[in-house]
């Protein structure tokens, strides 16, 4: 979130991150089965109950 922002709010893009640990975490997750998280399911249900969203 704020990792790419200076104190004055200037945005400094970092398009390529050379980080073996981060790369490995992503690559390993590619082989895992994807299950919807209960927390995300709760969030979606709550959103649907309380809001009608028009996204442009």
């Amino acid at each position, binding site marked *: 979130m704020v990792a790419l922002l200076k104190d004055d709010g200037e945005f400094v893009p970092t*398009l390529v991150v050379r980080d073996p640990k981060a790369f490995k975490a992503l690559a390993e997750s590619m082989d895992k089965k994807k299950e919807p998280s209960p927390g995300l399911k709760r969030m979606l249900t709550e959103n649907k109950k309380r809001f009608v969203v028009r996204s*442009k």
Partner: protein
Amino acid sequence: MPESQLEIVIEPLGDHVRGDFCCGEKRIDNFFRNNARNSHDAYAQRIFVARYGDKTELLGFYALTLMTFALGMNEEADAKFGRFNSIPTIYLTMIGRDQTHGPKGIGSVLMEDAFRRCLSVRNNVGAYALTLHAVNERVAQRYEDLGFTRFHTELHDRQQKDETHRAMFYELNAIAAALAEGDAT
């Protein structure tokens, strides 16, 4: 639409009034007030704002750009990962709720919209995950509850005493599965 539901419009940043936006995080407020429009118009990132359907006050916003993760230049010439040179992701630069106008729950609405937009992007441009840095530990735990995974990256290791940096990711396939399930019910 039931009376108790709030109608929210989420749209690309345009001529919206941003001068009094306040989410309480100084760097984000400064960015949004002073630099957001230039950054959006230059396509350095894209910014989406939320408002009530019949009002102009901003309730919150989020911003997306791209971030690619590559191997380091040394130790990880590892055969296991030789099939990839790099892994592209969509990066949630920031997300914020206006403390005055933003209703409780608008952060979740913005996050869901960001998820949906990421899935739309990946239909046209390859992207594996959504990545972000949580602003503090409380937020990081909230994101973990949603299904984000912590990276424990080199950056994290170097700055683990600095609570402003917490790198996380969420596979877009997992997000797609949850949204499909939610839309079907």
